């Protein structure tokens, strides 16, 4: 029986790029008993700002509760629920599958043609497939290759961005780029 896939909410948080910030966010989720499906962290075009993408099961979590709590963290600069507006989202998976005969190689190629996927490595026994797409697409793709025999897999988790001119950015600029290794304030950001 086909199960109805629960809808996901996607939140994006701009955070200060400082040690310990990921810990604070993770600790918040644990403490508040928030059920989070995926959490990714990466850099932005500004070295002092990182960006987190958080997906949650909308049936189980009100994204506003997460947003308002995230907002309270001192190192979180801004939060948006991007799934409530037009947006683009991507998940990337690397899938290592058995490919030790012509038939399986053939199937792989065919499956990859139907998805935003490609073969990025191939040897006598196994191949690595890469797919970049919406989360549901990635999941569908994985279902397709499963019968061939997945031996290893990794996913990045979802990243997302609002469409159009809705910009999620911060005007905040430290005076001098952050260099400190502490999780404290960065004195360079103040003009003395």
């Amino acid at each position: 029986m086909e199960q109805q896939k629960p809808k996901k909410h996607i939140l994006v948080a701009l955070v200060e790029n400082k040690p310990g910030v990921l810990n604070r966010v993770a600790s918040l989720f644990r403490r508040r008993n928030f059920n989070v499906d995926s959490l990714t962290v990466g850099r932005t075009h500004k070295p002092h700002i990182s960006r987190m993408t958080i997906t949650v099961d909308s049936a189980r979590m009100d994204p506003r509760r997460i947003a308002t709590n995230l907002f309270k963290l001192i190192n979180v600069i801004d939060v948006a629920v991007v799934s409530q507006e037009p947006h683009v989202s991507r998940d990337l998976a690397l899938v290592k599958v058995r490919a030790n005969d012509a038939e399986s190689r053939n199937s792989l190629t065919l499956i990859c043609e139907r998805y935003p996927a490609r073969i990025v490595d191939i040897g006598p026994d196994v191949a690595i497939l890469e797919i970049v797409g919406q989360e549901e697409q990635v999941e569908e793709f994985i279902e397709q290759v499963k019968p061939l025999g997945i031996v290893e897999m990794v996913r990045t988790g979802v990243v997302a961005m609002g469409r159009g001119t809705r910009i999620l950015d911060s005007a905040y600029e430290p005076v001098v780029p952050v260099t400190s290794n502490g999780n404290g304030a960065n004195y360079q950001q103040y003009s003395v």
Partner: protein
Amino acid sequence: MLLSGAEIIMECLLREGVEVMFGYPGGAILPTYDAMTKYPQIHHVLVRHEQGAGHMADGYARATGKVGVAIATSGPGATNLVTAIATAMMDSSPIVCITGQVPRGSIGTDAFQETDVTGVTLPVTKHNYLVMDVHELPYIIREAFHIARTGRPGPVLIDVPKDVQNEKIEFVYPEGELTLPGYHPPKETDHKDIEAALELIHSSERPIILAGHGILMSGAMQEVRELAERAQIPVALTLLGKGAMPEDHPLVIGMMGMHGEAASNYAIQEADLLIALGMRFDDRVTGNLNTYARKAKKIHIDIDPSEINKNVKVDVGICGDLRAVLTQLLPHVASMSHPEWLNRIRDWQEDSDERDILNQQVDKLLGAQVINDLWKFTGGDAITVTDVGQHQMLEAQYYPHKRPATLITSGGLGTMGFGLPAAIGAKFGRPDEEVWAIVGDGGFQMTLCELATAKQENVDINIAIINNAFLGMVRQWQEFFYEERYQATPMFNPDFVRLAEAYGIPAMRVTSRDQIEESVQFARSVKGPALVEYVVEKEEIVYPMVPAGADLDAMMRRPKPGEGK
């Protein structure tokens, strides 16, 4: 000026206006203790346990609205602070805790007395810092005080490695604006929300104001009173909201919730509009959420966006500083009257009066009588600092407060052991006020070591022990819900009078009601700490009581005289 990190800490505290700090020394914080000798302007109070230091800072903060400061060494010193930090966090009390840490190079090596204190305190602080560069220290201290006292206040911890305290740098105090990109002061309220709130207020026939701690923190007492008076809205208080409006005001019904006034709880259940001001719908306030105030529309004004729609779904949620929001709202509030509604409430109140134990003939000394007489003989004007338990609830019921910040009590965490140290802290903050610690025999023994602190500092507080020889509140639950199986609640107690005297603290024992007035005079006559032990009925019950999770109006009530149990 070339200063060590330790001296920078003291310089910065001085600039924050710190006049007193509560603490306990040890290896990792010794450089800062040594630097204190150069800063006699800041008085250091030596406590007997770091938990006491935290509660003193908290009591000081609640009494003054200023930031309280506690200081401790690494490892066990810091972990001893944790209960006090969690207490301050739950009740939004602004404190800054400074802890020593092992030198930077030793962090992560399980060095002697190393604990990951920023890790341990992460969930119980508003924010915390580990200072890895001495240059950051002045900025961090400024930020810490700013974060602790602004927005929704809370505890901030600063962990300072010993070598950072020792390192010398050229000290320049950072003036000017702080750069906290992720710290958002509340914005101006959308006028649409104000209009929506006004509409609900003006169309309501049975409104009630739920007055919380946020009123005191925002300093919105006058605005709340104006709103209540103009629209003739009755006011129920949370435990921490006591003092938000004078309790002798005719519109004030009294405390709501588990041990609140029956009239308040009935009124909430019957109301057609709740106006929640700076309160967070704690489960001790709401009882069963599914049946809570079902007939009412709800307006919630709170500075913390995550509080709105957290426990109770509301029709109008306004996020902002209460005083600012009410200032926007008030000019548009019409004069109203709700005579029928107020009469209904008065009927409930009269019914309660009939049941009131104080209006009944009892030949034993009751905690309720002691508290009510303390109220009478202190002119209802003392700062009372309670511990946790039955005596705390009796205080809430029988010591009406007229002024803000005159009841200091651990509400959200319910921390036994809070009373005595918090009273010491409160007295440091408001030395001209009469301060009474009202404590149970159980909770008192959790932090009684601070008697020595009170004596050493000659802190002029009065300590009232309500001794029922039981962990009374737990005993009450056992009586109601565990068929009177008093497992681990009867207490062996020391002779509290001789105990106090061993500390050089004058003390007296009271066993009958006619001694209470004398005991108050005695305590007041002592310059410095004084202790009075009130030996009360062992099996007193605090009524009314909403059993945990029950409907708010399903209260267990004291029978009326003649009705029997």
